[in-house]
């Protein structure tokens, strides 16, 4: 493909690398293959067969795990006859009082609210698309929001934090993992697969078409 070719094409058929601005003609690669920016190697398009259905299933599983992980204790401690259990919410809200309350809110958001919001938004936005329905109202905005939340979802970091905490108080008291820890470990695993299967360009593209369908339906 020549550069003049790209310059004269309809902008709607093009794709620009979000990292380095290199311009390409957007062409869907075969399933399981990826279109990569030749200059900075950012993955541009990576479709997978039946990815939509798998992503929705993953998001539903994530939703259940986050809710479960909030209610069950994730660590149990005992020393000299005293024992204590902590749930995820206890940990998130542990910095109570004074300016540390801010930290409580931030931690709650990072480990509970953001993963929860991402799962709900994913189901809401992609659900109708997978079942060939028009895109739901506000789908583009909400998907953009879900994408903006991505770096702030810190479930996997929290899981590693649990392990560090376990070692840190090992000589202070006896610690054991509760059911929520294993749910959290599962959540981390699902999040990684979720990000692997999600092809952002395909979603944007489908949403754009889905909106066309929606407008047509409203007009009819």
């Amino acid at each position, binding site marked *: *493909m020549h*550069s003049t070719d*790209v*310059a004269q094409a309809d*902008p*709607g058929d*093009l*794709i620009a*690398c*979000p*990292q*380095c*601005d*290199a*311009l390409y*003609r957007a*062409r869907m690669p075969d399933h399981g293959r990826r*279109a*990569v920016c*030749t200059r*900075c190697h950012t993955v*541009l398009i990576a479709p997978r067969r039946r990815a939509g259905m798998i992503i929705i299933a993953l998001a539903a599983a994530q939703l259940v795990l986050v809710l479960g992980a909030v209610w069950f204790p994730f*660590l149990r401690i005992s*020393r*000299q006859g*005293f*024992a*204590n259990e*902590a749930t995820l919410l*206890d*940990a998130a*809200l*542990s*910095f109570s009082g004074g*300016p*540390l309350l801010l*930290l409580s809110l*931030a931690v709650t958001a*990072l*480990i509970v609210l953001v993963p929860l919001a991402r799962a709900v938004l994913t189901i809401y936005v992609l659900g109708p698309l997978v079942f060939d329905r028009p895109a739901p109202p506000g789908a583009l*905005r909400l*998907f*953009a929001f879900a*994408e903006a939340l991505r*770096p702030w979802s*810190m479930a996997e*970091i929290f899981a590693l*934090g649990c392990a*560090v*905490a376990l*070692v*840190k*108080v*090992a*000589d*202070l*008291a006896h610690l054991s993992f509760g059911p929520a820890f294993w749910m959290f470990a599962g959540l981390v695993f699902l999040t990684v697969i979720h990000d692997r299967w999600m092809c*952002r360009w395909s979603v*944007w593209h489908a*949403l754009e078409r889905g909106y066309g369908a929606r407008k047509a339906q409203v007009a009819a």
Partner: protein
Amino acid sequence: MSGASGTITAREAGLVACTRCTRVWAAGTARCGRCGKPLVSRDTHSLSRVWAWWVAGVLCYIPANLYPMLRTRMLFTTSDDTIIQGAIELATHGAPVVALIILIASVAIPMGKFAAIGWLAVSVRRGSRATPQARHRLYEIVEYIGRWSMIDVFVVAILTALVQLNLAASIKPGPAALAFALSVIFTMLSAQAFDPRLIWDRAEDDTRARTSRA
């Protein structure tokens, strides 16, 4: 897709690209018609925002290291530990691997991030001998790794919630926990404010200048 030598940027083609959804529009379009993000060919205010968050991050990082992170109360003793003291204690108590994780996450990564973002921002202005590929790689690493610094804050949260054993032992967070969390958040915002397209623009201008001189 075209080869590396034949790449043309959206700006060179008289177009503007959306960095969120990668849709391309005619130059001068104010807002992405697909995802609604305001469009700019190059974010000219990018560097001032990068430096503003960077300074905020560095400022918060200083008290984060000076004040105690954890306040441990045992039966008759109370001890205040800063980040470094906590790591040293872990290392001397036979958990060198965990001490290393804490040191990497709380000291090496934040320091490395400050240096890397600062250098990238300067190199965009002044040019650099490093190839844009290498600098872009560095930017990707910084963006990916920055969140992991949050681990120490989570450890403090977990311990505070858990170790409340009446008289036997209790743990409370110190003021450094808030300062450290803020430092991590500000540095993440600093990295996000950076427009990586600037790395490639400058490189292209340099090559052009070199070829025209020759």
